[in-house]
């Protein structure tokens, strides 16, 4: 399997996805913003279709459009303070509307299905390089802003009092989410990106540990999910995106059951 060049690219990209997606996802989940990840993944489809129509790199197009959508969500938060759920509907309408209009216009020079469901065949060398650059920059940004992001997630008011520029950090975080989404689309596909962002974190949260331990386990579960998803989907001849999402759900269920078993054992000893 690894003798194929496209599979080597796919595995390399998958490792970067496995690190970046849950590292951003943990902040989204803990801020109860999982649906923003979902909205931005749909927004990336508009970026993909625009860039395909203009013969540009779709990963780059997804990153730019998703960053703009993330910033738009942050901007609209000031206008819809009492109906924040409306913001996601507005951004979804704008991005999905753009994508469908372009796809239905027949101006795309390629099939967009690979981006909806994920595909190992379409990962080019230039995509791989772009994914690596975006991932490294994003992880470095996360390390630099780690304490601010932890505190905004834990206690935004205390962060403001301590002098954190919360609004600016939220805009930067939107770009980081956009980066995670655009890195993930090639392999996982637009429709199930949120599974890579949220499910490994959901599994790690079951362990009830501190923040750093939860983050490390999120990445570990993410690596397990995406590697199993990639290998099994290859042999089963199905799209890697959907199958990786199924593996993520299966791993989460296994972790929940294991936790229940440990609790039952502990109480039976008492």
């Amino acid at each position, binding site marked *: 399997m690894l003798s194929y060049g496209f599979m080597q690219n796919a595995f390399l990209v998958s490792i970067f996805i496995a690190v970046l997606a849950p590292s951003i996802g943990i902040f989204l989940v*803990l801020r109860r913003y999982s649906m923003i990840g979902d909205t931005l993944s749909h927004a990336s489809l508009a970026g993909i279709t625009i860039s395909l129509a203009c013969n540009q790199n779709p990963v780059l197009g997804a990153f730019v459009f998703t960053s703009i959508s993330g910033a738009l969500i942050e901007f609209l938060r000031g206008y819809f303070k009492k109906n924040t759920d409306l913001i996601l509907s507005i951004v979804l309408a704008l991005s999905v509307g753009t994508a469908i209009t372009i796809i239905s216009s027949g101006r795309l020079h390629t099939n967009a299905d690979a981006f909806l469901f994920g595909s190992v065949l379409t990962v080019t060398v230039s995509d791989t390089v772009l994914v690596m650059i975006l991932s490294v920059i994003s992880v470095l940004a996360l390390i630099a802003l*780690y*304490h*601010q992001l*932890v*505190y905004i*997630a*834990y*206690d935004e*008011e*205390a*962060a*403001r*009092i*301590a*002098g*954190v520029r919360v609004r600016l950090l939220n805009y930067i975080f939107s770009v980081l989410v956009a980066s995670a989404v655009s890195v993930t689309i090639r392999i996982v596909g637009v429709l199930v990106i949120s599974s890579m962002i949220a499910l490994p974190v959901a599994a790690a*949260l079951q362990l*009830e*540990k*501190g*923040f*750093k*331990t*939860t983050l490390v386990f999120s990445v570990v579960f993410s690596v397990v999910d995406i590697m199993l998803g990639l290998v099994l989907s290859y042999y089963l001849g199905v799209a890697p995106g959907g199958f990786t999402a199924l593996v993520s759900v299966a791993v989460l269920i296994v972790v929940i059951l294991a936790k229940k078993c440990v609790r039952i054992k502990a109480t039976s000893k008492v």
Partner: protein
Amino acid sequence: MIKAENLYFSYTGAAPYILGGVNLELKDGEYVSVVGDNGSGKSTLIRLILKLLKPTSGRIETTAGRIGYVPQRSDAAHSGFPITVREMLDSYRHLLKLKNRDVIDDSLRQVGLSDYSGALMGTLSGGQSQKVMIARALMGDPELLVLDEPSTGVDVHSQKEIYSIIKKLNKEKGMTIVSVEHNLVAAISNSTLIYHLDVGHGHICTPAQFAAEFTGIGLDGREE
């Protein structure tokens, strides 16, 4: 320490005002309890002191270099958040740009929770969680400590411990305390001054005056 002049505030920028012409001057080293009915503007006043809100008109200033803040206890906001006491305090230390890591242990020692640094925040009792918030507020040696209903959702024994810590900080370290209080007995028993807010207007009085005028509760905390 804090001076407010003709302070007006409303979220819309127009009448009706939550605070309507507040004048207030608090000196260093005072322990002031801010009391009043729900909606009287107590929490708005401390949010203005903390610069989380901007006055609609008038001004409010503080000379404190660093302000420590203890928020109202909220189980729902932080439940399930995977963070240990040490991680939470260490991140806050980074926000305050304090290089000395010992401030974490020092602040936990001051509230008697040295053994809890490895505990998850979500597993602490109401009293312990409130003490950790006081420990956080103490990092960086603030000159002013602002508390929002420190005894809400806390058992009686822990309430006594919390007020004992606050009084000690006020008496021994000379720290200025501003505490929003629903607990009138605690306000009368512990503070040196009481600021009574009533529908956006306030006046300052001693605990004895407040007890006699408004509540019928004596200085010993017993109802008369």
